[in-house]
């Protein structure tokens, strides 16, 4: 089957305040019902996501970011073994680049990978709901990504993002 469409894959725990930014992003995208766009979310990325992303042309991983630039950043991701040390100690989660690597190595698929990091602030307590600042950042991220998806011009959106590793600010 020829890969097609875009998968928005958010992850995080909505019971840990701003850690729920990824699933919150997915929930909003789902309501927009954009053509060619499917969404999914989970508490953590896992190995079976390698099989899921393999059927898409593009995948956008969405996570909360506790230290990065405000309000959000978007980076192109590559499948690279160096960034894919998926299991350390007891980690039961897998990095986005590891997902891409596994998708390539196991399913001969190379979806175009992106990582969207939305800046959050409150992570230390249990609790539902996002902080006000995180909510504002979420709105801007949704606006940016949905616009790119609507125009089908996702690739060309990259130049608006400074993708240097040390300053990924929009």
């Amino acid at each position, binding site marked *: 089957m020829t890969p097609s469409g875009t998968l928005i894959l958010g*992850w*995080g*725990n*909505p*019971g*840990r305040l*701003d*850690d729920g930014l990824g*699933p919150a992003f997915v929930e909003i995208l789902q309501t927009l019902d954009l053509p060619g766009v499917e969404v*999914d*979310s*989970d*508490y*953590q990325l*896992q*190995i*079976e996501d*390698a*099989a899921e992303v393999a059927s898409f042309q593009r995948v956008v991983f969405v*996570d*909360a*970011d*506790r*230290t*990065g630039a405000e309000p959000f950043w978007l980076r192109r991701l590559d499948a690279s*073994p160096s960034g*894919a*040390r*998926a*299991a*350390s*100690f*007891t*980690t*039961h*989660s*897998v990095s986005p680049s*590891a997902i891409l*690597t*596994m998708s390539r*190595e*196991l399913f001969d698929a190379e979806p175009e990978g992106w990582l969207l*990091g939305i800046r*959050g602030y409150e*992570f*230390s*307590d*249990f*609790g*539902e709901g996002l902080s006000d600042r995180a909510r504002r950042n979420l709105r801007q991220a949704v606006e940016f990504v949905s616009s790119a998806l609507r125009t089908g011009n996702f690739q060309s959106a990259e130049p608006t993002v400074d993708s240097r590793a040390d300053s990924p600010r929009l």
Partner: protein
Amino acid sequence: MSTANTRRIVIEPLTRVEGHGKVTILLDENNRVEQARLHIVEFRGFERFIQGRPFWELPVLVQRLCGICPVSHHLCAAKAIDGIVGAEKLTPTGEKMRRLMHYGQIYQSHALHFFHLASPDLLFGFDAPVEKRNVIGVIAEHPDLAVQGVMMRKFGQEIIKATAGKKVHGTGAIPGGINKNLSIEERDPLLEDMDKMLEWSRSAVKIAKDYTLENLDQVASFGSFDSNHLSIVRQDGAMDLYDGNLRAIDATGEPIIDQVDPLDYLDVIAEEVRPWSYMKFPFLKSVGPEEGWYRVGPLARINTCDFIDTPEAEAAREDFLSLTDGKPSNVTMAYHWARMIEALHAAEKIQQLLHDADLQGDDLVADFGERREEYVAIIEAPRGTLLHHYKVDANDQVTMANLIVSTTCNNEPMNRTVREIASDYISGVPEITEGLLNNIEVGIRAYDPCLSCATHALGQMPLEVTLMDHRGGLLDRLARPE
């Protein structure tokens, strides 16, 4: 606390996903291991989080505790709420749907652990470079196994999705039952994959068994020690991962407690608080805090049950115990073999259930009976015995919650495993070497501990190892790039 004659080695793994655990090894003046402790960040604040919430929200709320085993918390809370609402016996559809969800969870969790967390240790050796000893290394050299792991995990996740609904907001189990049945359209794709899942499960048992037997000299003593074992079992002594009464045995198989109703757990189990850890240390009251600690999880369950009620897993269990002449196995690394026997059991159970027409029934929720203000439920989560104890008031609000999770139960055993390994490894050389770190990881990983109670956002630290003297001064540090 370290003294003038002791030195402290701290191994501090801060993974970006699971919060952090920290291993502290205390050496005496001759640089021999005096003590080893695994510190795990526990879910402080969770009780406060749910206090005052309506009890019927619990099955959804408690999933927030753990991104790794939300289904286990979901089902355990649902069972407790069944008791609160007086739903004494679920409908066949309600109970079987929940069981299917649970076996799906066991299956995917065990597959994930074995193929993608443990197999690098087993395939490449404990001392293989960490750059190789990971899932990418498995993909490079054993792509067939890596694919099996992915597809087994995916199969279990699809069962969960079909029974629980969304992954983040699973709502399948509700007070007194379930909110949906399994349609034929949902069932048939799962059945199509069933033979392959059984075949791969048998293969996984063989891999684990062969590894154990071929490396018995190393495996038998690696981080091993005699211990008590605890799980729930069915009334006839069969393994039952979803429901049952408590049984504990000692290292030789002699019973300590048997068929204790979960409601009476406080009669037989106490939790000790220790000043150096946020975690509690459960122990069997009749044995006492010093010797009453116990192991839980696959190894314990294989040891405590009298039999497994699915034929292939039972044959595998008998084969497993033949190595110890029918007595309990106290070999820490045998957790892997036991875990794969359970995966096979889960696959057999899933096959049985998918052929059961009750799953297409419409009677989803049992009648409610006499309302209770307190209840206790126990389930066997992938990592071991999980207990939820709740009190609610007349306004249906939660006033008390006590959760004993499997990693808490395995806390003391993991400490002992680390101590055994460190004692063998350090032998007078107070350094944190890659080899020591590797071996400690392998030992702890056998238990499949869940350290997931922290958040996981981008930007946290990778594994770090620190060596400190008895005054807290830094002697050495070993960090691994993320």
